[in-house]
């Protein structure tokens, strides 16, 4: 797209920066910290590119089609794939497509996706054919993005922000991202109690063990092991929207060659007589009974060998399984076991072992030796990452395509029979062409566009919609918050039960307790704490992790510390003597319970060293033995998508290594506060870890609130909301943006009082407010009830000046339909000269021109009809044309982007807020001379707020900010207002202001003791108050006034977008009452309650005025003879009107009315009524109800 204002076509040269420019040393910020925040998004998509597609294609089962005539079998499967970087489609093939171009032309940033499809006849060497599967959207800054690896200068050359971090997709010009979604932790069996389990079938209890098994291509199957009242158990899983329940004994026997004794022994082993002292514990006997029932069930089906069991399963699933019609029962049975039972494991032995473990856990749950696992706790959660969602969705779509291909070929075979050359690949491909392969790309794109998954089998996800959101750039904080947000799932939003919304201690350090919206999505939409990360497939060096190697090294380490591996089945014991060791949901062995702690310590040590082969993000979940607590065991997780956060490990060497811990293990760890406080720990259980910094538990946005530890906590929540609604410096690449609406603060400032996070995340690149001198006093009465007074002169000098950039896209192609020849062009009318003031000869507006509402800004000419259509400016305020961008792909141009600029300088009714949840509405722009002034400095405040804003809200942080900022101003230094300074590590503690005189001996008791002397040294009151004089009278105000600079944000809610007035205007055509809706110039409803209030006041005239005169006042002709208002009609004036009119008052062109029913105009009367009354009569008539009016002359007045 070319820009109109700049005639220079080779615009990129103007960004070309040669190295020999020593003067140009603009320091680009180091945005590593910011990139770290978005890493989970980018990394998951990198994984998708690197290996995700590959493994996914391998995992799609081939389809087989057999031609019965020629007896040839065709196997179709997917081979290798190619995914290319985004490139331009049309004329300029091979040219790379840049994200900014996509934004401008409302296109998608996507790369070509090609997969080799292998056709193999009768098992011969496959013939490979490349199929184009359309365009796959590419995430920005992922490995296939052109912006990857570009430094700030290159990014600027690409018309991006110098701090562009990617992580989102561009679909139809919109920036959309896939939001993190909470999922049950993968490959971890959980005890769950739910009443709905009872409703499965008769005899089911409410208890089960649930495990969500995830394959290496991220697709998952959830298995449920239900407990039956009989003592047996059923393994449940969903196939095609139906739940199938298999007796557990059958599954156990089908998995491996085993015998009843072995099963009995391994299940009953977990009860030793020593551990039966517990009150509710039940003996071996009871478990033995249960196992007997389980085994009897299988015997009852007269199944004895493994082959019989598999065959039995196969027989049942023959009809359910797709594409297995011709297979034998046993191979169907094998497939069921492979595809639906514990899919994260490959070998039957592993599955068997895990099932045994799950049964043990289930029995422990039933016998109250282990509690329920909380499905709402973060401990049992992981996250669904964007790349993984795309992988599973793409797999589903490709799978679908393959099956459709098979069906098409089969249909073709049965329809045409021998006529169809099944052996010819060309003919086969012709049939396949009916199954458009391009639709795959479109499906992914529309998933990103709408957030809806159009899938048959549900993908083992709880929700089908709301997966994506738009990455709004209202301001930087809002933008970044989108990427840090984690949603609990749409299924819980409608849930009346509020337990899911609870803030649980497990979430400490992972999810921010402050940063969640209040209201409907409260507690469901959380934000990750600033230090929280998500594990990925990449190690710290950026290489893909080799899970096989990791597994082996973990195994060897564990065997080294005394674990007995599970393979030669030797151990026949369970807790409490021996604990099972699970690695990513696979029972790898068991370890004696008195050796576990040593083993855990050893692994943790190895975790920290780089070359041990143990990944640094390994989660070592050691659940210790307890009476009635969580089921004990050593659970190791190396899988991706887990939450982790760094803490300091306090090992013997005292070298303070940073260890990554997960929410599962955190619960069982001793982590002390960063100040080293032991919080009641004794020497018996010393702290093993230490927090890095107390602010680590807050999200990025919550971390920016200064002195948030001095505020009442809900106020900090409000600030997190308001920070995201603030008008800020939204973009540095403002000139190149093509957002629908962009708010831009003209004169932003950096806050004087700031937290460490402010510098860490380079918020200075996108500041969001102004340091305003705030006086806290009740001055004119205009500052009541959270209103605030702005100094008129301050506003005139530029405080909070804002503009809104609004984009209109005019696409003629879209309007005229997708026909080949151009029907419409941009052109100005030659006849109508009045347009010329606002429309140029090319039919587009002049850049820089001010347009008024109703003025045309663009005109198009239909070349066939010659009709000229003008686009007129909507709204009620004047705008300036900011830029006109023309798509030059077509000649004449078909698509333009016109951006308008609306000035929005502060006016009465605009909303402002400090950073402490103290919002207010501007009630007056008060003249500077009337503002109170300081006698010594002559300072007048920019802003006055009412002191009543403080007592109930307790935002002490705001008062401290004011004092600190005043001190900072006087000293010319920024003030550090990081919360919890007293709880952070002592060695790097600094004074909030790096003052020259550091008296480090005396530890100040409170913040005021630190800030006060600073003010006194400059001749100010230590508490921040000053003597002010009335601006009107020049006399001293009675009280000293608290005054100082506070960072104020301007919120995006402005009156200009909200005010609604009307006197006369549009009416609803059916009722003739005023319309509703601000956009249509409608009114505000004067409703029942308002009516009641007027009735109560006896304000009859006003009531009549509002509900009748100013609404649907109507004078109807009523026939007094029949009482109808519907049968009246005008007589056409062609008749001799003389005699009829003579009776009626001869006024103007009064027309004669007659009644159709009575065939006379004798009884016609005029009656004023609301028009809806007439409408009611008509509606009733439609229902065969006649309404008659009885007219009588009023007692007091004549009609």
């Amino acid at each position: 797209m070319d820009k109109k204002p700049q005639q220079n076509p080779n615009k990129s040269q103007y960004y070309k920066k040669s190295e020999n420019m020593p003067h140009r040393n603009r320091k680009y910020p180091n945005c590593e910290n910011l990139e770290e925040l978005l890493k989970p998004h980018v990394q998951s998509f990198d994984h998708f590119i690197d290996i995700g597609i590959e493994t996914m294609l391998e995992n799609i089962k081939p389809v087989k089609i057999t031609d019965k005539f020629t007896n040839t079998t065709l196997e179709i499967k997917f081979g290798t794939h190619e995914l290319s970087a985004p490139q331009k489609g049309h004329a300029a093939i091979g040219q790379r497509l840049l994200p900014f171009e996509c934004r401008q032309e409302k296109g998608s940033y996507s790369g070509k996706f090609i997969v080799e499809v292998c056709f193999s006849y009768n098992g011969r060497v496959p013939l490979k054919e490349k199929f184009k599967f359309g365009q796959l959207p590419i995430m920005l800054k992922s490995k296939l993005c052109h912006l990857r690896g570009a430094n700030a200068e290159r990014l600027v050359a690409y018309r991006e922000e110098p701090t562009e971090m990617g992580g989102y997709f561009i679909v139809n010009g919109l920036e959309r991202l896939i939001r993190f979604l909470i999922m049950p932790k993968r490959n971890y069996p959980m005890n769950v109690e739910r009443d709905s389990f009872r409703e499965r079938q008769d005899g089911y209890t409410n208890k089960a063990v649930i495990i969500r098994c995830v394959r290496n291509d991220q697709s998952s199957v959830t298995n449920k092991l239900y407990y039956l009242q009989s003592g047996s158990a059923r393994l449940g899983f969903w196939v095609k929207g139906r739940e199938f329940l298999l007796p557990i004994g059958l599954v156990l026997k089908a998995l491996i060659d085993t015998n009843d004794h072995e099963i009995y022994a391994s299940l009953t082993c977990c009860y030793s007589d020593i551990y039966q002292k517990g009150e509710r514990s039940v003996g071996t006997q009871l478990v033995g009974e249960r196992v007997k029932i389980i085994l009897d069930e299988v015997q009852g089906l007269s199944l004895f060998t493994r082959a019989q069991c598999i065959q039995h399963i196969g027989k049942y699933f023959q009809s359910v399984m797709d594409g297995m019609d011709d297979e034998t029962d046993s191979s169907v049975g094998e497939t069921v076991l492979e595809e639906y039972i514990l899919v994260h494991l490959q070998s039957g032995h592993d599955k068997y072992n895990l099932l045994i473990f799950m049964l043990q856990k289930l029995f422990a749950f039933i016998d109250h030796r282990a509690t329920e696992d909380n499905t709402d706790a973060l401990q049992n959660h992981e996250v669904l990452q964007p790349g993984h969602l795309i992988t599973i969705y793409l797999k589903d779509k490709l799978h679908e395509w393959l099956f459709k291909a098979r069906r098409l070929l089969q249909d073709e075979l049965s329809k045409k029979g021998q006529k169809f050359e099944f052996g010819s690949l060309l003919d086969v491909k012709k049939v396949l062409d009916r199954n458009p392969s391009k639709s795959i790309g479109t499906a992914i794109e529309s998933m990103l566009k709408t957030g809806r998954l159009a899938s048959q089998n549900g993908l083992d996800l709880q929700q089908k919609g709301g997966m994506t959101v738009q990455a709004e750039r209202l301001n930087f904080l809002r933008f970044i918050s989108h990427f840090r947000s984690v949603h609990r799932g749409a299924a819980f939003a409608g849930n009346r039960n509020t337990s899911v919304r609870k803030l649980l201690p497990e979430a400490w350090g992972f999810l921010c307790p402050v940063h969640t919206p209040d209201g409907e999505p409260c507690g469901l939409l959380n934000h990750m704490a600033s230090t929280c990360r998500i594990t990925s497939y990449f190690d710290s060096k950026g290489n893909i992790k080799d899970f096989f190697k990791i597994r082996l090294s973990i195994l060897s380490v564990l065997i080294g510390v005394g674990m007995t591996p599970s393979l030669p089945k030797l151990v026949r014991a369970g807790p409490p003597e021996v604990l099972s060791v699970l690695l990513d949901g696979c029972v790898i062995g068991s370890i004696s319970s008195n050796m576990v702690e040593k083993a855990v310590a050893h692994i943790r040590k190895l975790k920290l060293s780089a070359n041990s082969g143990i990944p640094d993000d390994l989660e070592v979940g050691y659940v210790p033995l307890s009476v009635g607590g969580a089921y004990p065991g050593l659970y190791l997780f190396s899988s991706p998508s887990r939450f982790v956060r760094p803490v300091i490990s306090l090992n013997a060497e005292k070298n303070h290594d940073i260890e990554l811990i997960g929410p599962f293990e955190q619960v069982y760890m001793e982590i002390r506060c960063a100040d080293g406080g032991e919080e009641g720990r004794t020497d018996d259980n010393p702290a093993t870890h230490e927090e890095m910094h107390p602010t680590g538990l807050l999200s990025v946005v919550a971390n920016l609130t200064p002195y948030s530890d001095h505020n009442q906590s809900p106020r900090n929540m409000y600030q997190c909301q308001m920070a995201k609604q603030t008008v800020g410096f939204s973009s540095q690449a403002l000139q190149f943006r093509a957002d629908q609406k962009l708010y831009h603060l003209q004169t932003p400032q950096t806050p004087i009082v700031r937290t460490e996070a402010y510098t860490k995340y380079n918020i200075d690149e996108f500041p969001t407010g102004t340091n305003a001198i705030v006086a806290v006093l009740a001055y004119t009465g205009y500052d009541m009830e959270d209103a605030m007074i702005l100094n008129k002169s301050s506003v005139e000098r530029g405080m909070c000046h804002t503009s809104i950039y609004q984009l209109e896209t005019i696409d003629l192609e879209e309007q005229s339909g997708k026909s080949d020849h151009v029907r419409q062009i941009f052109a100005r009318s030659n006849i109508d000269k009045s347009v010329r003031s606002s429309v140029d000869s090319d039919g587009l507006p002049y850049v820089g021109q001010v347009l008024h509402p109703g003025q045309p800004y663009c005109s198009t000419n239909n070349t066939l009809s010659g009709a000229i259509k003008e686009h007129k400016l909507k709204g009620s305020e004047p705008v300036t044309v900011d830029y006109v961008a023309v798509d030059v792909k077509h000649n004449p141009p078909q698509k333009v982007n016109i951006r308008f600029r609306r000035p929005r300088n502060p006016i009465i009714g605009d909303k402002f807020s400090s950073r402490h949840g103290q919002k207010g509405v501007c009630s007056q722009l008060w003249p500077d001379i009337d503002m109170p002034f300081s006698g010594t400095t002559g300072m007048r405040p920019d802003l006055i707020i009412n002191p009543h804003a403080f007592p109930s809200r307790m935002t002490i942080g705001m008062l401290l900010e004011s004092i600190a900022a005043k001190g900072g101003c006087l000293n010319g230094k920024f003030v550090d207002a990081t919360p919890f300074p007293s709880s952070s590590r002592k060695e790097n503690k600094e004074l909030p202001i790096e003052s020259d005189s550091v008296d480090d001996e005396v530890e100040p008791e409170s913040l005021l003791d630190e800030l006060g002397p600073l003010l006194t040294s400059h001749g100010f009151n230590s508490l921040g108050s000053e003597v002010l004089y009335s601006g009107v009278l020049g006399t001293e105000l009675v009280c000293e006034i608290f005054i100082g600079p506070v960072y104020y944000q301007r919120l995006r809610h402005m009156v200009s977008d909200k005010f609604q007035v009307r006197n006369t205007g549009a009416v609803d055509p059916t009722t003739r009452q005023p319309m509703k809706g601000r956009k249509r110039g409608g009114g505000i409803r004067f409703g029942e309650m308002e009516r009641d209030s007027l009735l109560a006041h006896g304000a009859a005239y006003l009531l009549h005025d509002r509900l009748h005169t100013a609404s649907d006042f109507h004078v109807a002709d009523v026939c007094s003879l029949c009482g109808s208002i519907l049968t009246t009609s005008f007589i056409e004036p062609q008749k001799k009107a003389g005699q009829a009119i003579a009776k009626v008052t001869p006024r103007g062109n009064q027309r004669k009315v007659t009644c159709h029913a009575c065939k006379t105009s004798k009884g016609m009367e005029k009656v004023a009524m609301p028009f809806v009354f007439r409408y009611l009569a008509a509606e009733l008539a439609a229902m065969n109800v006649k309404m008659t009016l009885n007219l009588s002359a009023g007692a007091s007045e004549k009609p």
Partner: protein
Amino acid sequence: MEGAKNQRFPKIKIREMKDDYLKFELRETDASMANALRRVMLAEVPTIAIDLVEIEVNSTVLNDEFISHRLGLIPLTSDRAMDMRFSRDCDACDGDGQCEYCSVEFHLSVRCDQDQTQDVTSADLQSTDPTVVPVDVAARSSSSGYDASENRGIIIVKLRRGQELRLRAIARKGIGKDHAKWSPAATVTFMYEPEIRINEELMESLSLEEKNSWIESSPTKVFGIDPNTHQVMVVDAEAYTYDEEVIKKAEAMGKPGLVEIEAKEDSFIFTVESTGAVKASQLVINAIDVLKQKLDAVRLSDDTVEADDQFGELGSHMRGG
């Protein structure tokens, strides 16, 4: 008049005078007078500021409104302002506001053709009237006050290669009440002269340490101690900010009435800081002129209501802009 016997003759004593700074005493009058003077200085002394900008080319990073706003805020030397006409009252141009009696035209045309970032400053504004120029430009030519090397002009916008700014600007006379850009004063403030009486007898009952801590309690240096006699004395009465810290301290020490501080009702110390549009001294004189005109208008309108319309410029002052 009856008020004649209460008539007072305010006195002004100038303490310190620079081009942009003035400190003076105003005596023998009351707060209403002092505050009126302050208000007039801030909001009603006319100056000249850019009011209308016609942008021809703007390919800079800042948008038209923003640049216009910045131009408006540049202080222009406004010694002419008192004699100039308001555009709305100008007969010569029918309120068009573009004639020589009520406006000054500026031109600005800068294009960056180098690889360096180029600053567009107030020095690039070409005035048609040599008496009305941006104040920093005037200061540079007069070589008084500022250090010329330090003075790089007020930056309007920065340009990169290929960017250009070309515009015509009209400066007009106006007052601060209408828009802050016409306010000639950066700060005008006054304080009541304090009268401090130390109760010597009570003071002597304090130890040296107590005396010192009492003196320290005032954030500003009002009191001092004689190193020889250890006598507490007033060092700088005017440094007192009426914060009553010392009185509170005295009460806290159990010695109420240690010091008595009163504000004199009839003497004020004014501090005036000018933007440079008008010299600080001239600002005060202009303010008194404007105040006089306003009072004249009040006196005249006392007799005739119709007279209100005849005042022209004065009328507008009376009606508040």
